[in-house]
């Protein structure tokens, strides 16, 4: 999907966002090949034998088909960890789904299903607070049930904690369209159209978040084009270091953009932490390990977010919505000190950007020549307006044509199963007995090819970024470290920094 397209359809942003998630599921191969399969398994009906068998098959075929199979270690293939921040991450969603399928756990599965379908079916539009309470109450309830039914009953603390964590992921994955503000708004609009009502009210808190997100994005586009590191009072950065920083920022962007591809608060949070890690990696490379602090980190975080505008032309980051979503739906027992710290820093940075305006500008940023800065800002704004008009000139017909074409090509890329997943997610009878269309043998192979290609593309992209950041290393060294770190970019960068 082109970024142009995103930008063009401002009024239907939520629509695009939905599409984005759809497509993203396809290309999301960044952290081990297991990822897609798990997404598949988890969004599909957990009890569906067919799906799970297929899931295992796919995994096997990938294992043998993987080009670098000797370099990819077991955990890469078998553990379904979405983004992971540490190598010895214990999060294990796949086994959780397995436990849930255990006949003895049937009551748990039933409670969960009924809860999810109730919420999906509900025609009431809950506000954020109410949703938080609903989920918390259900989680509390189901945690109690864990101590009654096997196989959860006899689990040790570690496994039980994993089960609680995974239950959160399951619930939020299924209920995502009802919980994540931009998508929630989209389903609200749909509901109003179907019912032909226009006076139904969308919950204020969700609406505010969306409004703030849009206005923050405007600030990023406007101010991001003109604000320099110096304006934010960071340590003197040489020309050479700024070039280096831009390379790190590309990776920062990629990590951050991934956040939109995941549905659970946990996975989104890991993406956020990874992007913070990238910033620290740059700081370490610039000034060594000594005395790094919030004085260095905070301005650079703000700068990095502002500079998203350089690399991407889409407002679909939904950063503020994502922060609120994580904060609201991540269970507090899993939101520990360090994680809250960086979540809060991100919120602080976004707040800082959101509050930028011409009246307070020079108290918030440091500028030598105020007039010069104002002129640059006006110029930037003019440029953005011109660009907007240019886009508006594209007739609706062209837009329509473009979209049709795009839909067509997307249709071809996608396999039936993925479609089934999305429609099952969006439809209210998610637990209905309708059988999902089965993939045919031919598009299974097609799908495998697709996945392989995506993995290779992703690897290529990663290697290019690494080469840019560490030109002093031989390709083979970069590759070795990359594979040793199971293709986790933040960890790779960290190890390379140690080698410098």
């Amino acid at each position, binding site marked *: 999907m082109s970024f142009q397209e995103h930008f063009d359809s401002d009024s239907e942003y939520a629509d695009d966002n939905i599409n984005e998630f759809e497509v993203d599921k396809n290309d999301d191969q960044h952290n081990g090949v297991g990822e897609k399969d798990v997404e598949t398994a988890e969004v599909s009906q957990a009890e569906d034998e067919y799906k799970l068998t297929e899931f295992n098959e796919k995994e096997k075929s990938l294992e043998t088909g993987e080009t670098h199979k000797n370099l990819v270690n077991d955990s890469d293939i078998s553990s379904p960890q979405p983004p992971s921040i540490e190598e010895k991450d214990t999060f294990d969603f796949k086994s959780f789904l397995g436990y849930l399928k255990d006949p003895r756990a049937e009551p748990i599965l039933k409670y969960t299903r009924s809860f999810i379908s109730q919420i999906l079916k509900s025609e009431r539009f809950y506000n954020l607070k109410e949703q938080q309470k609903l989920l918390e109450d259900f989680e509390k309830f189901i945690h109690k049930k864990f101590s009654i039914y096997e196989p959860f009953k006899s689990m040790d603390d570690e496994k039980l904690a994993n089960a609680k964590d995974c239950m959160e992921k399951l619930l939020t994955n299924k209920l995502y369209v009802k919980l994540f503000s931009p998508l929630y708004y989209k389903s609200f609009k749909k509901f109003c159209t179907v019912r032909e009502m226009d006076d139904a009210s969308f919950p204020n808190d969700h609406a505010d978040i969306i409004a703030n997100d849009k206005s923050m994005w405007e600030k990023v586009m406007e101010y991001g084009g003109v604000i320099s590191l110096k304006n934010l009072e960071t340590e003197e950065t040489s020309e050479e270091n700024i070039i280096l920083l831009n390379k790190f920022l590309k990776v920062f962007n990629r990590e951050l953009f991934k956040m939109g591809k995941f549905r659970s608060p946990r996975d989104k949070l890991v993406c956020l932490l990874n992007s913070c890690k990238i910033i620290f990696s740059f700081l370490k490379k610039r000034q060594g390990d000594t005395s790094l602090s*919030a004085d260095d980190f905070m301005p650079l975080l703000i700068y990095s977010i502002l500079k998203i505008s350089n690399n991407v032309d889409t407002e679909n980051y939904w950063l503020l919505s994502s922060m609120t979503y994580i904060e609201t739906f991540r269970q507090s027992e899993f939101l520990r000190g360090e994680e809250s710290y960086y979540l809060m820093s991100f919120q602080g940075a976004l707040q800082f950007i959101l509050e930028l305006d011409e009246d307070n500008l020079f108290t918030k940023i440091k500028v030598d020549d105020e007039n010069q800065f104002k002129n640059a800002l006006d110029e930037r704004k003019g440029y953005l307006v011109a660009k907007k008009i240019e886009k508006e000139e594209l007739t609706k017909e062209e837009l329509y044509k473009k979209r049709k074409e795009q839909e067509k090509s997307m249709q071809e890329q996608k396999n039936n199963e993925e479609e089934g997943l999305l429609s099952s997610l969006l439809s209210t009878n998610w637990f209905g007995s309708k059988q999902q269309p089965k993939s045919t043998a031919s598009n299974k192979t097609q799908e495998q090819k697709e996945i392989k290609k995506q993995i290779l593309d992703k690897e290529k992209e990663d290697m290019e970024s690494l080469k840019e950041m560490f030109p002093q290393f031989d390709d083979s060294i970069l590759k070795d470290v990359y594979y040793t770190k199971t293709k986790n970019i933040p960890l790779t960068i960290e190890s390379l920094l140690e080698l410098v």
Partner: protein
Amino acid sequence: MIQFKLVLLGDSSVGKSSIVTRFVKDQFDENKESTIGAAFLSQTIKLVDNQENPDSPEEVPIKFEIWDTAGQERYKALAPMYYRNSNAAIIVYDITDDKSLSKAIKWVNELKERLPTDLNDPNRCIISLVGNKLDLVGDDESNRKISTQEARDFSIDNGLLFHEVSAKNNIGIKDIFQELGETLYNQHKEKQKSKSMGRADSSKGNIELNRPSTNDSTSCCN
């Protein structure tokens, strides 16, 4: 393990981060818990509790979670997000900079306004005022711009803990944290005691204290 949230405040030039870096690096710690970067650090210290049983003192580990804040004036507005729910605050100034104490005093006043700091409040945030860069003064007192007396008097009047230290030469650093730890631990015990006697207010206790330890092997950050 009992853990406390500690926020670090002070101008960017006073060396607040080097105080923490010094403290964290000098302690023996087999599991480094900070995985992202240096803006958030955690460190465990051991206290000796012999109040209950003077003959067999008990060793109590407590953990600090240290939240650093950006010291530049322009980021001051973000500080409340960080000090919310803090159990303790270290406010740092530079004894060789005559303006820095007044800035520290502003932080003290802001915290007193927005956090529970009353001596009798069981949830009070304990503040330690710390004058850094003792190494620059040495024998030559002429470099000193803030007298010990002035800062100490202010601390006593306002119920703060007070230290003059050198992060560079590692003078007095450990004491800041040891004293804070003991004060926090005593406060914590007081609170537990009054709770068990049933006369504690049943309002929400300190959330930080009830959180499971990050040492938990299931943490995704281990």
